[in-house]
């Protein structure tokens, strides 16, 4: 069944139909909330609040954008209001200090075990500002367009593009730095 049909069912009083939307978006919603808040309990609470808000506001959903975009926008604003925008300015300056080289390759990472890779990536992502991590997730993982990210975050188009570009660069810089350290430790 298509999302449009599910939404129509919900609006006609079939509350249980909302469960399929919850099932579909709960993992991504939790990922986004966790990336923004970096706390499991807060993320869980924000996801619940966002779904309830979405349910209440569903009659106002006009279907001009994708449901996911509309829902992620609610989720984004719920997360922001949780910490009143603090995470947007919580740039960790210490991570910027050693970014001086442009990465060339990530061969070492390709040879690692998946669990080890995941641990490294998570460590790197923890060192990135939450807003940059969120933009990377929305653009590369959720495959949102720039326009959709603009709608979700309320940032300007140029701002989103600049932040995305910077986030990607920062990620590779940190990855390279991390891999260098790992190799040095092994030597």
């Amino acid at each position: 069944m298509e999302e449009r049909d599910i939404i129509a069912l919900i609006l006609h009083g079939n509350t249980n139909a909302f469960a399929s939307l919850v099932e579909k978006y709960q993992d991504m919603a939790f990922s986004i909330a966790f990336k923004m808040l970096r706390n499991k309990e807060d993320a869980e609470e924000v996801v619940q609040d966002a779904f309830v808000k979405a349910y209440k506001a569903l009659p106002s959903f006009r279907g001009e954008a994708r449901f996911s975009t509309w829902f992620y926008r609610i989720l984004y604003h719920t997360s922001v209001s949780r910490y009143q925008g603090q995470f947007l300015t919580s740039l960790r300056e210490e991570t910027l200090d050693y970014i001086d080289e442009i990465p060339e390759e990530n061969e070492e990472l390709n040879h690692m075990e998946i669990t080890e890779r995941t641990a490294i990536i998570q460590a790197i992502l923890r060192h990135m500002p939450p807003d940059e991590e969120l933009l990377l997730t929305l653009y590369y993982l959720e495959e949102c367009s720039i326009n959709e990210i603009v709608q979700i975050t309320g940032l300007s188009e140029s701002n989103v593009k600049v932040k995305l570009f910077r986030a990607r660069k920062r990620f590779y810089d940190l990855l390279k730095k991390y891999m260098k350290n790992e190799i040095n430790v092994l030597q």
Partner: protein
Amino acid sequence: MKEEEIPSDPFLKEILQQTRLKAPEGISMHIMQRILTVEKTKNTIKTEKLPGELSFNIFPVIAWIFFFSIVGIFFILSSYSDNIPVSIVKQYLIYILPVVTLTTLYYFLNELGKYLFFKYFLSKRV
């Protein structure tokens, strides 16, 4: 900077995929419980009048229908039988009409008073 200038990055996508989190067990159940509570609350609000909300009272309407029905019956009966003179209808109108009118007025002013009290007095205090 155009959208095309942001490069597609399968490597980044793949490694981000590995860090994708799963929502905690039972979160969907909690969400659906909360939504069912929202629905229940909505239904309760529909049946219970909130303070400051204008309500439609059925009693004056019933009173008026009853009043006109009696008047109608009297008129019909008086046209068929001389035992029921028109003066009885007139007396009925004289005594009952003010009662029905005053009852309606009471309901109307009572509702209006409550509405204005909540809207302009109590809401400012809150």
